[in-house]
């Protein structure tokens, strides 16, 4: 592990949905400024991991540390206030709010209007198409635009750690490429990114670190470039 303290660290985290043991001891550490990705099959517990980090699902056991501070007992709004942001799975934007209102909701916890306006400009520069749609209802946007809006909304809180849940879900390959290019751009601005993806090839190709998840456990951790060459990963997730 690098000498610098990781921005996010999970230590043996367990999460339950009622009786279902969804996370069975997840541990990982994400260095500051990194792009890390978590790949795995449907139902492996990838989304649950993100929701647990954010406090939407409570961790029954284990520790979650953000910049060395324990956050597993915090409520979502407290986690958000620390500088963590998340896009929900399946492009959950507010369908009956306009694009502008959606973005404003992202800055819900912030009072500084000038800085919010600056960030709005930044989001529009990342996703120019959103600027053309400011007054359109979120629900009437196309799938790709909704995903951009979800990412844009998450950026509006000016996060230091951005959790992305399946940004490529249900998008055309061309759009997926565009979204991933933007993710790289966001990362260059200094935001740490933790990405959950089923599109393993795409996710690994932009990440530094990769985690492979199977039935609630992280079974493989390596450099993303090495994972791309790993025979097991190739067979199971890359379809080669």
């Amino acid at each position, binding site marked *: 592990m690098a000498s610098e303290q990781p921005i996010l660290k999970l230590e043996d985290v367990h999460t339950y949905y009622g009786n279902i043991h969804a996370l069975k001891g997840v541990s990982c550490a994400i260095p500051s400024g990194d792009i890390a990705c978590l790949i795995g099959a449907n139902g492996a517990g990838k989304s649950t991991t993100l929701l647990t980090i*954010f406090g*939407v699902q409570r961790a029954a056991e284990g520790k979650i540390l953000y910049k060395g501070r324990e956050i597993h007992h915090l*409520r*979502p*709004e407290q986690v*958000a*206030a620390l500088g963590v*942001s*998340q*896009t*929900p799975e399946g492009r*959950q*934007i*507010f*369908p*009956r*709010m*306009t694009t*502008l*209102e959606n973005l*404003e*909701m*992202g800055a*819900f*916890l912030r009072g500084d209007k000038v800085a919010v306006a600056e960030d709005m400009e930044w989001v529009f520069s990342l996703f120019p198409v959103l600027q053309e749609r400011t*007054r*359109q*209802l979120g*629900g*009437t946007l196309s799938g790709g635009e909704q995903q951009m809006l979800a990412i844009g*909304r*998450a950026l509006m*809180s000016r996060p230091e750690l951005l959790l992305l849940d399946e940004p490529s879900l249900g998008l055309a390959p061309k759009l997926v490429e565009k979204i991933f290019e933007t993710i790289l751009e966001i990362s260059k601005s200094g935001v740490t990114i933790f990405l959950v993806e089923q599109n393993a090839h795409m996710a690994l190709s932009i990440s530094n670190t990769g985690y492979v998840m199977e039935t609630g456990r992280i079974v493989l951790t390596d450099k993303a470039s090495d994972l791309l060459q790993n025979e097991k990963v190739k067979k199971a997730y890359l379809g080669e």
Partner: protein
Amino acid sequence: MPSSNVKKFIVYSLFMGILILPMVGLPSTGFEITRALLVWGVFVGILAFWLLGKSIRGSDAFQSAAGGLAPFRSRLFDNFTKVPTKIYLCLLLFALAAYPQVANNYMVDVGITCLIYVVLGLGLDIVVGLAGLLDLGYIAFYAVGAYTYSLLNLHFGLSFWSCLPIGIVLGAVCGCIIGYPTLRMRGDYLAIVTMGFGEIIRLVLNNWDKLTKGPNGLLGMAKPAIGYPSFAEGGVKWVSYSLKSLHSLYYLILLIAVLTVIGVGRLNNSRIGRAWIAIREDEVAAELSGVPTTWLKLLAYAMGAAFASVAGAFFASKLSYTNPNFFIFMESCIVLCIVVLGGVGSIPGIVLAGIVLIAVPEVSRELQNYRMLVFGLAMAVMMVLRPEGLIPATRHKRELHETEGETYGE
């Protein structure tokens, strides 16, 4: 008349016939065919008139004629919208203030009831319209307000004004009590639980004989009073003037209603209001945006309950009497009807619906038993023709008439 309208006419008439003939024609004494046919005839007549009007409006000749008139119409409309809303509001307020001066006592009484329901409707709109939590037991908070004032006044002689804040706090606490266990529920389940809660409050009031005198109710509360300084001999003295007349009570509830409109209006446009809408739209997404959903949902219940509690305290003091049967489930339904019919989230709509829904059954008392039929029919027709409510909120109108790619101004 196009054939589709003819078909509609026949189908609708037959349907009405099946519905109305047995309902109207079978009173306790026997089958009165003439009366039944008369009522049916009226409906068929209205239907024919409506469809005829519709087909004339749809015809080419009318369209071309209307096309010529369009510039005039738009100019007329422009002139209406040019007048700022404030002037309309002042006119409306003036009309409401002048109302008791021209109306008789009975009409003033109906006016008071209307305004009470306007306050209730607006309070429920916070819970149902903004936060999207379906509450079928809302009238319980109205009961809490009424009984808080009654008991405190009878036992401790507290005045209406000092009871108001206590009632508001108690109402809000009750709102949180029902809110807390239902935080994780949505939709149908939430509706059932709130309905149960409403009934629990009523049954407790009905059966706690020692405190509430059960179904006999509480009697003899003081009317609200206002103090004014009197400059008699020996300096200034505060004299209290009891608001006994219907007129003065009308002005008091008018004041409460206006304050409610202002309060709910400000909430509507506030940061909290926006967060409530976000919760209604998508709870997880709201949570991920940093909205404290738990606390805001409780706040919605508490705020809604506080308004109902104020209305309840006023109601009890106006009648000087209260009993548990004022707070049956049907009342919750009527308040919900006001919100839905007026237009969810729309303040002017709810004010209008409150007045219409309470006044119409009163005014149509001459129709005797048919008045409920008229009432139900009016509601059904409304829901078919204008599902977004009498005066739809801009946001809600979008929801029901959403089309791909349409843009809206802010």
